[in-house]
């Protein structure tokens, strides 16, 4: 029973951190209607900003996050404005060229980081990382728990932002119907840039929450990108609540897969869920939850 509880709690805590990365992606996907494969690489850049701050100033990643997010917001804005937006206007045989562009951008960014920091693993080890709480035979890592709480704070703040402020509502309006939003006086192009930047900043926040738990290296993002789009599909495009529930679900499913099947197949669990959702639940949890 303790094993079961441990697996469940670890899954939930991990899922919260996945969710914050995935919410960034789901927002971008909702507004732009493309899959942004540069998302993972931008998360990795956020992690490296934190690593640099940790190494030079000794800032804990949770504080470094406050710097990393604006940095990545800016980078995201520039990327969207000068590169991805251009491709939207171009007529091509294959509409997937935008997806490919984001992927090429992501791989290019990875190589830039590799040139600067080499492929070595970077660790931001703080005494905090090893701290645990014990309850009923289960141990809960402090870094997981704080990461999860921070992630939930971000999700709540984002939800309020999206539903209560003008800017947030414009984002939702653009996601729902771009043309209609334009007629209502929303500057859809600007909102797209803003959404891309916001999503990237959220990814950076997710990366910073992962740092005390894991190490980082330039290719660290591949599994997280996969998880982010699995969650996006699972939760439904553009839905924060869907992404949150999808993230928690994926975290738990992976955790159970790792405990009861094999740690090596942990990532396969997510991919199987992904295929099943694509086939049997198109539209994702958003359809089930009803928002």
């Amino acid at each position, binding site marked *: 029973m303790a094993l079961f509880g441990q697996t469940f709690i670890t899954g939930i805590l991990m899922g919260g951190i996945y969710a914050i990365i995935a919410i960034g992606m789901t927002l971008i996907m909702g507004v732009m209607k*493309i*899959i942004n494969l540069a998302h993972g690489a931008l998360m990795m850049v956020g992690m490296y900003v934190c690593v640099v701050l940790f190494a030079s100033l000794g800032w804990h990643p949770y504080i470094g996050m406050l710097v990393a997010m604006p940095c990545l917001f800016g980078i995201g804005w520039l990327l969207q404005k000068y*590169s991805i937006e*251009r*491709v939207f206007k*171009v*007529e*091509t*045989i*294959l*509409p*997937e*060229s935008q*997806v*490919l*562009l984001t*992927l*090429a*951008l992501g*791989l*290019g960014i990875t*190589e*830039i980081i*590799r*040139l600067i920091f080499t492929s070595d693993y970077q660790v931001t080890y703080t005494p905090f990382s090893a701290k645990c709480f014990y309850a009923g035979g289960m141990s809960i890592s402090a870094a997981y728990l704080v990461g999860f709480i921070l992630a939930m704070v971000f999700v709540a703040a984002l939800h309020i932002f999206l539903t209560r402020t003008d800017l947030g509502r414009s984002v939702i309006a653009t996601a729902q119907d771009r043309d209609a939003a334009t007629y209502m006086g929303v500057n859809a192009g600007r909102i797209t840039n803003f959404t891309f930047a916001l999503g990237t900043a959220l990814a950076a926040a997710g990366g910073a929450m992962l740092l005390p738990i894991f190490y980082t290296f330039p290719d660290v993002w*591949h599994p997280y990108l*996969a998880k982010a*789009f*699995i969650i996006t*599909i699972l939760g439904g495009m553009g839905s924060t609540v869907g992404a949150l529930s999808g993230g928690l679900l994926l975290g738990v499913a992976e955790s159970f897969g790792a405990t009861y099947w*094999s740690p*090596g*197949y942990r*990532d*396969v669990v997510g*991919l*199987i869920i*992904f*295929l099943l959702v*694509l*086939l049997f639940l198109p539209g994702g949890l958003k359809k089930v939850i009803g928002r």
Partner: protein
Amino acid sequence: MAEIKIMAKKSWFLPAILGIVVVAIPPFLGGYIQHLLILMMMWITMATAWNLLGGYTGCVSFGHCVFFGLGAYGGGLLLLHWGISPWWGMIAGPILAVIIGIPIGLICFRLRGPYFALALLALGEAFRIVFTNWVSVLGGACGVVSSRTWGVEKLPYYYIALAIAALSVYVVYRLMHSKYGYYFVSIREDQDAAEALGIPTTRYKMYALIPSAFFTGLAGAVWMNYIAYIDPEVVFNLSGISIMMILAVMVGGAGTLWGPILGGAIFVLLNEGIRAAVGPISYLIFMVIACLLIMFLPDGIIGDWAKIKRAFRRKKPAYVGGE
């Protein structure tokens, strides 16, 4: 005057010259150039195969490494379990790729556009993880090591790769000049309209997938025999195989016959050439080139040939509605 007539038929003349060159010249070249040519032929095969499904039929696959890896592992597993020469993989590999490809197609063709791409991307990753972890049956992360039949001699491999590349181009050419070709393009242009006109779209997508998987698998089998070593991280690599296949097609021009040929050749030259010149930074340069290409020549060199010519003549295109 017969010769003049033949020369006038350019569509026939150019391939013939090219054919003579690629058959006759390589024996006189050095080992490194021959190596490049072998890789080039392999990539031309893969790009042509990808182009059939992605460029012509419009099902952009981000997971063709599945077929490449299965093609390579077809021979690899025969060697691993029964000690059979990996040359039998030239038959077993592509067949394995097709056998696995059919259920993949049946499941994934229900999805469209980016969802199809993502589903295959996920499948590619899943295959990589399974092949890495299932040690008892698939060999695990150590991969499969074989030995080369001809040692350091490269020429036989070259002719095999060349034959396969030529065969793949020929098959795609014949397909695209038959009823199937028109069906494929109509599915790409508008799937709903195609369906409304009575084209069974899923079945015709399968007809595009099967040769595509077959030839990608064949390229994988050649790789297995030529490199004599495979492991899951290499043959099921997302950025190394799946994405590069797409980029090679995009460089040349998706949905054209010559696009993948040119793209595959340029890709290998660029990739190897840059690596030889500048070292580890090559991948970054390649990605920058890829980004610029997608941004400015989205239909590739062949597809946007008119655009390139116009740019060199420095003549502004006459827009009717203004820009």
